């Protein structure tokens, strides 16, 4: 566990030119490890696992469906035509 913390932390020092996708991927890996092992989700009941998955899913819904608006606003250049 200690190794995990140190290694992942070390990767940040070199994160100079990397873009957001990679940064978020690393963040997600760290997050998954924290949730699974520090928070014992790996050892928890199915109910708890489903609950967490549901939470992430609904957050995703909030972000994704809102973005359907923002990403498509520019598509129609001449409304009514």
């Amino acid at each position: 566990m200690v190794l995990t913390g140190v290694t992942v932390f070390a990767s940040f020092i070199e994160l100079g030119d990397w873009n957001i996708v990679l940064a978020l991927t690393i963040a997600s890996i760290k997050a998954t490890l924290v949730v699974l092992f520090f928070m014992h989700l790996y050892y928890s009941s199915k109910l708890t696992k489903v609950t967490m998955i549901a939470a992430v899913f609904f957050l995703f819904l909030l972000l994704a469906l809102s973005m359907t608006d923002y990403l498509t606003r520019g598509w129609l250049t001449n409304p009514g035509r």
Partner: protein
Amino acid sequence: MATAVQTTVETDNYLNNGYGLKSWLLTKDHKRIAILYLISITAMFFVGGFFAMLIRLELLTPAGDLVSSDTYNKLFTMHGISMIFFFLIPSVPAVLGNFLIPLMIGAKDLAFPRLNLASWYIYMIGAIFALVSMISGGVDTGWTFYTPFSTTYSNTHVIGAALGIFIAGFASIFTGLNFIVTIHRMRAPGMTWTRLPLFCWSNYAASIIMVLGTPVVAITILLVALERLFHIGVFNPALGGDPLLFQHLFWFYSHPAVYIMILPGMGVISEIVTCFSRKRVFGYEFVALASIAIAVLGFLVWAHHMFVAGISVYAALVFSLLSYLVAIPSAVKVFNWTATLYKGSIRYDTPMLYAFGFIGLFTVGGLTGVFLASLGVDVHVTDTYFVVAHFHYVMVGGMVLAYMAGLHFWWPKITGRMYPEGWAKLSALLVFVGFNLTFFPQFILGYMGMPRRYHAYPPEFQVLNVLSTAGSSVLAVGYVLPMIYFLWSLRYGKPAGPNPWNAVGLEWMTPSPPPTHNFDETPVVTWEAYDYEHQPEEEVRVGH
């Protein structure tokens, strides 16, 4: 074959287990907390009703002569806030759900009794914040708090009201959390998911929404307050913000919120329809799953409140399609209730009258919702009285009727007394007639173009408005009468036995009122839900 559970002494119940204010204000008994909620939300209902009365009085005449337009803005805002956040959202869950869920599943209490009490105190603090803002000048932003008016330009007590709602939201979250854990972890032996009363399924689905949705509106309202305080520009277009972002975040909760309101009501109707037709609910699994489907699909449709607000038309398309989908599980429920009635042995007691009213009025309201899901129709009738009529049909014709149905159905269990049936039937009739007279004209008004949230209107709309106001006075009588006779029944009502309706369910196997600890011994459930075929007709349930 259902067996009854006996208790020690008939008079030893949760009501007389300790007198004095402290025993009530520091109680951990879910039944007492339900009563505390009953008192508070009834008070808020009448606060909201008071504002409604002023609105309808203003709308008697086309000119804006009773109040100024600013005051009128405050009236409909405060009507909306009190009714939605402080009456409808808590109503069935906090009163009936709190009281009944542990009884229905065979538990001694909810999973977290102290959290339950805390939730009531939090609700009260929120209500006080809201009431103080109302009394010290009111809020005029509409219950929807659209920006940038609410964040920048309104001169009223937005922050106070917003904080009140923010705080009350936590009461809702804690109630929902409590219900989910209780239903998962505290069912009696033999009470499997497929034997669970549909009332529990509905409250469970509503609790999922409470837990997932309320935090989003909480943070949104917090941002509004911060923006008002610090003049940051998150929602203000003059500073680069997007008012539509507020609307997205607000409606992400507020649309599922309407399902928080209606799902528990549907649960009540399921219980009543089955008992008063003496028949199992048709398609139990479908009704249970429909509750979950409504909860999930309800999260996918929020932008149908924003069709004309400026969202991209492609997003509008997506949300319109999804909004059609969410009607399906509700329709499934209506069909199943109707099928339950078919060839049932129907009794027309007051709870059943309200249930009939619900089925009809909710169907009308729900269908008009489908009209609104259509982009073309919505552009024509949005922000008119058509929308006002639609949501009052589902929320009042649906939800309030369900709440009244539930109150009447379980009143003998809660208080040990029967209400006077004659007066109750009269009130139900008055509510039904008054409601339709109030709100049906509004469909026509909206279609003809009368906009909502305006205190003046063109003279050709007056006749329908007068009809509507007349209806509202009938409706008001229908609401005041139960207040009177319920209170009367506490002292003079006929004492009710454990099961005056001969219903099936664990809550009917305890004395009325139940003892504090609910069950002497944890019941073991060996029968299916709504086992009316094996339910004997005689009222007395003895034995162990």
